[in-house]
């Protein structure tokens, strides 16, 4: 028998007493905060590509250029920017990560020993802005004569290598520390769940064979030394959920 429209006619305002009777149990125990609310959803919002929320177009071009040297396109995967790394970093910098939200940011700030952890008063957003500007300045005004994004791959690699080694001295910024942050964020843009704007089509996960946001491997734990055949899924990425075309 077809279901028909069984929603509207039966849908009366639910008797408050039913919800209330359940909730009164919590009240009896004396809680200040509710234990559970219907319809609660903490899924992060899906990042949409297109446009920049933090980077200027020039900064975005630099980040994309970095991403494509750090993770070049080859037969293992598309390039970093094709995987959405620049979009990912852009959205992160305009969010809590970019503002160091939740970190202890009270003065006084001192340099400290390396083992005492990050001590900079600058947020990641500030550091990206300052350091990208300094790198571009270095490239344009030095004997390279062009901005970082316009250099050829080999020249870009040289700069990255120098940053990594700590030999690229830039005024007012620590390029080695910046490199470490940039590389970390680039990897995040390649390997984090696609809901954050990177790892588009789960290309990072496909490269290594990580099945992503799967939650039940009980049928597989005993299958030692066997390849796992299922493709990756993301929090909001489930290609298999689209019904197959009907045979006609």
């Amino acid at each position: 028998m077809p279901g028909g429209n069984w929603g509207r006619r039966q849908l009366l305002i639910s008797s408050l007493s039913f919800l209330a009777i359940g909730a009164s149990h919590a009240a009896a125990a004396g809680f200040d905060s509710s234990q559970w609310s219907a319809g609660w959803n903490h899924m992060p919002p899906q990042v949409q590509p297109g446009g920049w929320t933090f980077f200027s177009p020039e900064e975005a071009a630099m980040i994309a250029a970095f991403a494509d040297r750090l993770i070049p396109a080859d037969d293992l995967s598309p390039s970093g920017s094709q995987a959405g790394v620049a979009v990912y970093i852009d959205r992160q910098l305009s969010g809590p990560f970019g503002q160091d939200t939740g970190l202890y940011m009270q003065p006084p700030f001192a340099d400290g020993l390396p083992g005492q952890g990050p001590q900079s008063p600058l947020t990641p957003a500030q550091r990206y802005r300052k350091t990208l500007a300094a790198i571009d300045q270095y490239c344009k005004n030095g004997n390279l004569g062009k901005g970082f994004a316009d250099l050829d791959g080999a020249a870009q690699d040289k700069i990255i290598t120098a940053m990594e080694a700590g030999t690229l001295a830039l005024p007012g910024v620590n390029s080695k520390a910046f490199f470490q942050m940039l590389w970390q964020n680039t990897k995040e843009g390649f390997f984090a769940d696609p809901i954050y704007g990177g790892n588009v089509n789960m290309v990072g996960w496909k490269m290594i064979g990580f099945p992503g946001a799967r939650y039940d491997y009980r049928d597989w734990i005993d299958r030692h030394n066997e390849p796992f055949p299922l493709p990756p899924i993301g929090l909001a990425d489930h290609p298999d959920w689209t019904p197959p075309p009907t045979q006609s």
Partner: protein
Amino acid sequence: MATTLPHKDVAIIGLGWTGSILAYELATAGLDVVAIERGPWRDTATDFPPSWAPDELRYAVHLDLFQRPAQSTVTMRNNLKQTALPVRKFGSFIPGNGLGGAGVHWNGMTYRNMETDFNWRTHNEQRYGKQMIPEDMTSQDWPISFQELEPFFDQFEKLAGISGKAGNLGGEIQPGGNPFEGPRSAEYPTPPDKQPYGATLYAQAAEGMGLHPFPIPSANISQPYTNPLGVAMGQCTYCGFCDFFGCGNYSKASAQTCVMPALVLQKNFTARMNANVTKINLDSTGKKATGVTYVDDSGQEYIQPADLVLVCAFSFNCVHLLLLSGIGKPYDPVANTGVVGKNYAYQCTSSVNIKLPGKILNPFISGGAVGMALFDYNGDNFDHSSLGFIGGGVLQAAHTGGKPLTQLVSFPGTPSWGSGWKQATKENYQIGYSLGTQGAVQSYRDAYLDLDPTYKDPYGSPLLRMTFDWHPNELKMSQYITGKLAEIGKAMGASEVFATPAKAPYTVIPYQTTHNTGGAITGTDPTNSVVNKYMQTWDVPNVFVFGASVFPQNGGFNPTGNVGALAYWGAHAIKTQYLKNPGPLVPA
């Protein structure tokens, strides 16, 4: 202006494992109990259901479930010559927050102290002579024995449904278990977890070398289970999103999974969430607590009067509160006086990364406590006579997941970025495996906690200052046991073995463990401890302290089994002795 609230029999600071166990024990004994927790309520279906729990960036990288340093952090220095600086972003250790505390996102490894962990000093002095223990090593005997605590280990394991295989049942060694464990009265409540491929290769190799591997006693339980409180738990699905994450299907033991459903039915229990206790209040004699002061999210201050105060916050947060409240004499490392803050210790970890070419390890199929371990190089289970150090650690094959941002197995010589990095990362993903040690850390005169002179928390109180470094004993110990672990790696058929024993100095990055111990240690008298054998402070008999801050030193494994047992042990003492006759339970 603080608002004074109606009186309660018991005020519990912190609603994690120990807070919830004590709340249940005392509420069911008829007392009026209020638990005051700094963080939010946490509920499985609302806060970490399987639909969004498996999010590495959010939880393992951005630490969404943890304490925010802005709420409270510590300052750190290696020694007295340095200036301590704030841990502005947690790294080496990451305190939990909210209902369940760190028990929400822990691994779940649930070991017990061995017998010789309890009478540590007596045993080692007897075997090796007093000169074996350096002058500045302040490790000491626990004032409790394994036998006394055994029924309470059992009680905690049954609460949590721990999956494992007994190695010593009533004095009889059992095959397949840990032969070095103290004699147990009962088997584990659920059978051991299934093991992924890498862990079984480790166990085979270890057995072939005459060692004694056993399944890690695991709070990621192997089958559905109903605990003695009537609370049901589910079966672990080996999802590989365990440590740093909440469990979405009720299969990782935690306060909210195992205790809270039964606790919330007790009419005489109340919880105040998002409420930060700033002080334990004392009367004019300074020897009696009158209750606690706390501040809620809106900044409103409250005074909660209570007859009994239980300090159940995270380990060093308990010490912080004692110092801020003037309970006990603060430790001065130079003068060598005082006790509060003394004997701070940690966990000395190391890793051995191996390559097993041709194998398909599927590292993503795992769990936080899913793996195999051995105690052959732990405690005093091996002869230290000519080794030049004391103590040891557990050697584990517990590769807890295959998450690409935090769990890739690295090898030296790998290109650090670019196509070479991609190639190596892809190649190593299925064949790379990480073995690890968790080494004991002894206590030292110059490793301690006190109040920082410069930095403050949001309430204007000084931050806790941590002075800590590895000492030669721990470095030698780590060198030795990591070498032993590397041998097992070789015996597994590894083509590459990359061992990284601990090296000085101790650093607050990267992440190591959140096994911070000591600072409010237990002992036989007020000169050598902050609390007596029942976790009762010597100075203020109506204040008890729970958690790892009572450990006189840390053993070679995760502390939670001990922590849970001590909570039940203390609850038992309060119910059967203290309530009948409030006052010091041990003559000072």
